[in-house]
């Protein structure tokens, strides 16, 4: 039986970056099979066109760029499924109602002063908590939120790709952002670890 040919240097580098790519694919897609598909397609595309990488500064940056395109393709193909699963669970509560408002619509207490953000933005642990909080969003909300914040798509493009009404999108993003705010408040600004 002939031995498998040894990996080229380029192939070995790609294989080594697979876990890194899976982390983002999982975070964005919230589905193991979808994530595996997107990452496999990314690595295959990179293997097929190694010359496209020549001269680029960072292999990682190049791969993430390809991954984002593969993920957008995957999201488009899955269409309604992307934002329909878990909707009933996602819908059960408006996070605004968890904030303290008086009957007349005014804040019952001052929102916390989060202090000097510069200090936090440079902090690895803060960014880790931020990512953990995004990971804890309900699946459909998390996908839509990261389409805005990681894929950096416009709201119009998200509606178009997923055949979603703007109202529906804005409700989900509103909830995702308030959940994220609450999570950061509890797990970072009030000093409790994410479990």
């Amino acid at each position, binding site marked *: 039986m002939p031995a498998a040919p040894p990996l080229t240097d380029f192939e070995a580098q790609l294989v080594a970056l697979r*876990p*890194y790519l899976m*982390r*983002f694919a999982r975070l964005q897609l919230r589905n193991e099979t979808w994530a595996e598909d997107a990452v496999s397609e990314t690595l295959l595309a990179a293997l097929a066109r190694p010359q496209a990488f020549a001269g680029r500064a*960072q292999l*990682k*940056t190049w791969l*993430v760029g390809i991954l984002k395109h593969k993920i957008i393709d995957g999201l488009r193909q899955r269409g309604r499924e992307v934002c329909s699963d878990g909707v009933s669970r996602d819908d059960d509560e408006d996070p*605004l109602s968890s*904030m303290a*408002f008086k009957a*007349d*619509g*005014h*804040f019952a*207490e*001052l*929102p*916390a*002063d*989060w202090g000097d*953000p510069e*200090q*936090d*933005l*440079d*902090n*690895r*642990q*803060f*960014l*880790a*908590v*931020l*990512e*953990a909080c995004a990971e804890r969003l309900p699946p459909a909300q998390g996908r839509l939120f990261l389409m*805005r*914040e*990681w894929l*950096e798509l416009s*709201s119009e493009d998200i509606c178009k790709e997923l055949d979603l009404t*703007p109202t529906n*999108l*804005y409700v989900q*993003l*509103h909830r995702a*952002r*308030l959940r*994220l*705010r609450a999570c*950061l*408040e509890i*797990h*970072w600004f009030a*000093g*409790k*670890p*994410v479990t």
Partner: protein
Amino acid sequence: MMPYMPLKRTCREVTALVIAREDRALPWRERLALRLHMAMCAACPRFERQVLTMRRAMGAWRNYTLEADADEPPAQDRADARDARDARDAPTR
């Protein structure tokens, strides 16, 4: 006394507008109402600063995750987060 104040918004409404602004352009009337409310409210500007911090934090996260030292999943950092936070909050003696 004005029986109808088309530009008056409650904190709850302003909070929703501040969040909505992250994902869509607000109509001019809402932008104006927002500014008027911010000028005379102590609570909403704080909420607005939180939302701006989150916006910048997501940008910092995007850049950080492409850096060379961002290979490890941040899960490993979580246990350290509290220590870091405690250290930051420790009173200076």
